[in-house]
Every structure is written in structure tokens, then in C-alpha cells.
């Protein structure tokens, strides 16, 4: 059996006295796409940050590409990318300059034009602080694509985007799937995102409440919401 890209066992994270996440067991193989669903504060972002090596677990273990993030974060970071709520951008720099900074640090050619074209942006020279939220989101996607990750961790891909942008994200996720990228997506748009994934995990109050094939995720989500309300 091939080594899972992500392996978590009894994974948990505490902030102060509060457990934000607990009892997560997960194996994700190369090329699999997992949807994380749940209400705000359910633990989705915490789980993505644990997988990204930005956070250390308070309990349990996690291995990414078979490596221990506590000891080999540097090697792991060469192979993954995270799209988070924050855009990870320098507000005073232009979009192309932001991409150039990342490209040089990860050893890619520093021409940002192909990456900007891929996310539907022009190489505008004005600082990104003057850009709309949707344009920044697209630039964050360009930043992620530029890293050519084997594991893409994507938190709320549809947030701040207009309906055209939603369709564009769908296309991008399909493109990543066909390229064999392992993807974990956290989204509130369960119907939409589940169609692009194979598996789904529902988190509530930091605990896994349901997991299964993604085609059953919309029904599981509806049942959960009805019970919860």
C-alpha cells in the first residue's frame, strides 16, 4: 500500500484550555481530494494549519509525505501550499512583485505573467492594498499555483469571489485533480465543493461527526444542520 500523503492519528490541538480540534484520524492518498465541512469554529482551519506545519499538535500524531512536521517542516514545505483566510500578500507591493518574491524563494522562474494569466489577472503595477477582495483572492490562488504543490490545502476557495469566480475555482480544482495533486478543501458551499471531491469529513466543535464519500456529503450536511438547529 502506498504511503499516505497525509496521515493523522488521534490528532488534536488545544488553544489555552479549549480544545479546538480532537480525535481526528485520517489517511489521504496521493491524488485524493477531501472536503472539510462544518460550521464556523468547527475546527476546519485548525486542521488545515496542522497539516500545513504552521501549528504543532497538542495530542496525537501527524505525518505529511511520511515526514514528521516537527522535525522536517522544511522538506514538507517544499511540497505543499496553503490558501488561507489571510492572503499572504505584501499590501504595498503590486501583484506581480508579490509573485516574484515567492517565485524567487521557491526557485521558480520569476516571470509572474503566466501565473497571473492563469488566474485571470492583468500584471497591474498598483499595490494590492488597492485591489478588490476578489482580485486578492485570485492573486492568492496564483501564489499557490506558482508553488506547484503536491498537496494543496485550500480554506474557503469560494470566499470573496463572484459567481463567475466560483465557476473558475471549480475549473481550477478539476485541473488540480487531473494533475494528480492531493487536495483538501474546507468550504461552506457543500453542494458545489462535494462534486469536486471524493471524500468528505464533517467537523463540529472540533470533533469529527461524519465521514464518507463526497456524493453523500450534501445529505449528511443537511441532516446535521437539521439536527443541530
Amino acid at each position, binding site marked *: 500500500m502506498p504511503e499516505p500523503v497525509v496521515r493523522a492519528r488521534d490528532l488534536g490541538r488545544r488553544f489555552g484550555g479549549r480544545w479546538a480540534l480532537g480525535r481526528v484520524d485520517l489517511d489521504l492518498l496521493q491524488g485524493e481530494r477531501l472536503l472539510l465541512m462544518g460550521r464556523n469554529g468547527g475546527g476546519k482551519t485548525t486542521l488545515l494549519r496542522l497539516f*500545513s*506545519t*504552521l501549528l*504543532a499538535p497538542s495530542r496525537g500524531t501527524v505525518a505529511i509525505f511520511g515526514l514528521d512536521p516537527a522535525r522536517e517542516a*522544511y*522538506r514538507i*514545505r*517544499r511540497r*505543499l*501550499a*496553503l490558501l*488561507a483566510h*489571510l*492572503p*499572504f*500578500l*505584501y*499590501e*504595498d*507591493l503590486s501583484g506581480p*512583485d508579490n509573485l516574484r*518574491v*515567492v*517565485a*524567487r*524563494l*521557491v*526557485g*521558480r*522562474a*520569476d*516571470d509572474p505573467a*503566466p*501565473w497571473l494569466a492563469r488566474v485571470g489577472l492583468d500584471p497591474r503595477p498598483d*499595490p*494590492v492594498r488597492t485591489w478588490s477582495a476578489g482580485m486578492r483572492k485570485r492573486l492568492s490562488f496564483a*501564489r499557490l*499555483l*506558482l*508553488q*506547484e*504543490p503536491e498537496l494543496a490545502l485550500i480554506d474557503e476557495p469560494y470566499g470573496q469571489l463572484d459567481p463567475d469566480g466560483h465557476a473558475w475555482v471549480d475549473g481550477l480544482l478539476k*485541473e*488540480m485533480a487531473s*494533475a*494528480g*495533486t492531493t487536495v483538501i478543501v474546507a468550504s461552506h458551499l457543500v453542494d458545489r465543493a462535494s462534486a469536486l471531491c471524493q471524500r468528505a469529513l464533517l467537523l463540529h466543535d472540533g470533533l469529527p461527526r461524519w465521514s464518507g464519500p463526497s456524493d453523500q456529503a450534501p445529505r449528511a450536511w443537511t441532516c446535521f444542520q437539521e439536527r443541530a438547529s
Partner: protein
Amino acid sequence: MTGPRGGRGKGSGTLLQLVRKDLLVGWHGRARLVGLSTYAVTLLLVFSFALGPDTATLHDHASAYAWVALLSASTLLLAQSFLQEVEGGALEGLLLLPVSPVALFYAKALANLLLLLVLAGVLLPLGAVLFDVSPSGPPLALAGILALGCAGLVAPGTLYAALTARVASQQVLLPVLLFPLVVPPVLASVKATALLVDGDPMGQLGAWAGLLVAFDVLYWSLCGVLFGRVLEA
């Protein structure tokens, strides 16, 4: 997921790329640097007017006031250097790249040192005019003391600026943490600058410069090691 690949961004090149990035960000935020220069120049003006027209008094206090102005401006400069990193989560984004915290520290400290030296380059000639001072020592020695003194401010300042970057009261907290630590290099800088301005009949300059070098080596080594811990906090 294919795209244009190049071979750069590895090894020591990472440090240079990070310095380049910090200088680029500094350049795009140059309005803040102009504001800082204005603040530091205003401080010098206030000091010179407070002392009055007595040439001897102005002369005696010139180096101390120049370093007080530099210290004050450096605190703001250091704080701002990390505000831009925290805004938009840029620092977190950098941490997710294969970049070591040690490289992040030295790049940021070097960029801050360069910016502080530019500020000093504006401030000191003006101070020399305001305080009616013409250095008796060689200009190169003065530049050396200036660089060593600024380095003594920048290393712990960069560390503490990172530590306090996500704290709402950073502008208060940073000086409280930083000033006790930079008292020895600032004192040594003031004494060494005064000796270069007034003359050094007892040959004390070497001792003060040696003290500065010792503190710089200590701070630049220690802060580089501790920076990773600060980022994890």
C-alpha cells in the same frame, strides 16, 4: 500542474532574495521612511534649540543627542518593518515556504540596518550643522562606529519587533523591551562618537569600539538563534 521552473532561490541565495524583498517592501513604503526622517530631524532641532546658542554646550552634547534621535527613530523603523509582515499574513506566508527562520532574521536585520544607516546618513550631517560639530577623527572611523552602533540596535530590535508584531500595544511594548537591552551599545556608541568628534588624547576609542563589536557579535548570534522560537510563539 506544470509551470515555468528555474533554479534560483536556494542556499545562500535565499538570504539575498529575502534582503531584496525587504528592501523592495521598504522602498514601496518609503513615505513612512520620509516620515521617520522628519521625526528624527525634528528631535535634533528641538534638542539644539533647547540647549541654546552656547557653542561649547552644543558641542559637548552633540553625539548623545544624535544617538537619542537615532534610537527613537530606530524603534519606529523596526516596529514598522514587521507591521508590513503581519498585515495580510505575509510573514505566515513566508513561513510556509522552504525558508529557514535564521535566514528570515538575518535578512530582516540586514535590511533594517541598511535603512537605519540611510536614516543616519540624513541625520548626522544635519546634526553636525545644528550642533556646530566637525569631527576630528577620520570619517571612515566615524562611519564604522555608526555602523557598529546601528547594528547593536537592529539585532535585538528586529527580534523584539517580531515578538511584539501581533500585539496591539506594540508601539509601547517594543521600547519597554528593547531599551534596557540596547543601553550598553548606545552608551558605547555615544562615547566612541564623542571621542571621534572631540579628539581622543587618552586613546580610549579602541576600547569602546571593542565593546561595541562584542555586543554586536553577541546580539547577532543570539537573536538569530532565538528568532525561530519567537516566530513559533
